């Protein structure tokens, strides 16, 4: 199904707040037409960080902006626009972002977690455009997924859908085995070092990534059992390792017991450099889209 693109002539602001890293952009016609990225001190008090966010939005805000979308790595009450216990920002324990920003800018504000933003961003602007049912996997330090069904973002009742990282696997859970931290925990290898060695065809590095692909394949199978999507898009720091673990991942996935599910499955890697801002802005387009 091809979505109605006309809505995207509407202009939206996307905000991504990832700990020390703040990115804000204005999106129109499927492009980021103005943006800024800045470092913030994540240990500042709540109000100081909030002001930094607002100052940044001020710089890209124009009168024709229809809505603001914000992606935050935290628990989110989507309907109230409240974020709880934001990762890497200790002072943000409960911030009513939705109300604060809609009071100031007089437009609708959509708050969601970063994995959900990533998934809806890929649906609107990235590798998943052609597909109605999609799961986006964000893997770096943590592992979180966003779920698109019938072209719409599905956040669950308490924004907790897609937490595949928390599902038990072997003696821990998928987050333990399928994130970059595993390389260091298990093998004492920093991701950077592992990457460089793999590029040089280092046998040990390739074997590490073979095992990783096997485990990652199990995470994919669990996603297939839960959602049976047409397309899975992988983003985050793990993406650069994908060429090394991809064949081993597929070996596990192809052993899936329902071959119909795997036959047409696409597993892609995100390659849009501005997906964080685009994904946050896509929250607005998703909210506007009619089912």
């Amino acid at each position: 199904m091809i979505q109605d693109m006309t809505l995207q002539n509407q202009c939206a602001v996307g905000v991504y707040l990832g700990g020390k890293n703040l990115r804000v952009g204005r999106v129109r016609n499927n492009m980021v037409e103005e943006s800024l990225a800045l470092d913030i001190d994540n240990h500042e008090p709540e109000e100081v960080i909030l002001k930094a966010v607002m100052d940044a939005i001020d710089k890209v805000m124009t009168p024709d902006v229809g809505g603001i979308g914000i992606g935050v790595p935290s628990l989110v009450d989507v309907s109230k626009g409240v974020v709880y216990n934001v990762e890497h920002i200790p002072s943000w324990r409960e911030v009513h972002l939705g109300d604060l920003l809609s009071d100031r800018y007089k437009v609708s504000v959509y708050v969601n977690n970063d994995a959900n933003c990533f998934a809806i961003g890929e649906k609107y602007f990235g590798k998943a455009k052609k597909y109605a049912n999609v799961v986006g996997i964000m893997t770096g330090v943590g592992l979180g997924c966003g779920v698109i069904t019938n072209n719409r973002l599905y956040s669950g009742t308490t924004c907790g859908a897609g937490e595949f990282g928390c599902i038990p696997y072997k003696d821990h859970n998928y987050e333990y085995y399928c994130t970059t931290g595993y390389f260091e925990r298990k093998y004492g290898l920093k991701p950077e070092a592992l990457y460089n060695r793999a590029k040089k065809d280092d046998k040990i590095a390739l074997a590490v990534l073979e095992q990783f692909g096997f485990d990652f394949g199990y995470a994919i199978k669990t996603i297939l059992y839960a959602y049976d999507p047409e397309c899975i898009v992988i983003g985050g720091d793990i993406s650069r390792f994908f060429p090394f673990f991809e064949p081993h991942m597929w070996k596990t996935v192809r052993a899936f017991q329902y071959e119909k599910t795997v036959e047409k499955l696409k597993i892609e890697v995100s390659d849009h450099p501005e997906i964080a801002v685009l994904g946050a802005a896509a929250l607005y387009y998703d909210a506007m889209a009619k089912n």
Partner: protein
Amino acid sequence: MESLKNVIGVDLGGTNMRAALVKSGEITNKSARLVPKTDQADEVTNALIQTISEVFTPEVEGIGVGVPSLVKAGEGIVYDVQNIPSWKKIHLKEILEKAFKCPVYVNNDANCFAVGERVFGAGTRYDDFVGLITGTGLGAGIIKGGHLMPDQNCGAGEFGMIPYLDDNYEMYCSGQFFGRRFNADGGELAQKAAQGDQAALAAFAEYGQHLGKAIKTVLFTVDPGAIILGGSVSKSFEFYKEAMWQEISDYPYGFALENLKIVPSDMQEVAILGAAALCIDALS
């Protein structure tokens, strides 16, 4: 939109095929026969058409069929149906639409259960819930925004297949658990538990712990507002619910639990009514 008033619900199991005429949520006429044991796909198809025609009337506005298999929902193609070895790939929707000249909707049995609960059962109270069948197997249908969540091949909600301990959740959370673990039948254990038999109650407590783990996986993936339990084991809900909730209580996102409802289905004939509800869901 007006919902269909006269529909036929068909429950195609591995052993029996059953069809019923459903008017405004009430079953008014039923027919059933054994699934022919044959390697000829046509024999099974013809038996199914015969079963449906015994309850078919000219006012019927749609037919819904629940099948224990993967289904390509839009096209109504069923693949590798459990216990019907001749059905490798059957264009069931097309075949039945040709035979009965009305719209036909095909989906897997777990999805039918969820839709049945949504349209006729406890699910009328919830817009987002998971219908979890705990019978011979463990499967689920996901209701999102009041309707069945679409997917690629009706393969979503197969939580039973997710790896768990030395096997998968199905082995620990379906009726198979009692045979494997206690060499006992779940139904007989339930009778003993009802009489206060301590060993039977302990067996259900152990079951409840495993089911609680499966439910946490449902919460992590789908985060529904409610879970409606169906299938034969759900009839023993009162014997295992305490252990189940105990296991769920350490779910890390506590506020998701505050409003979560977990209830057993109280519908009779939910398989047939669920298949009938497919029509109503598809057209509303």
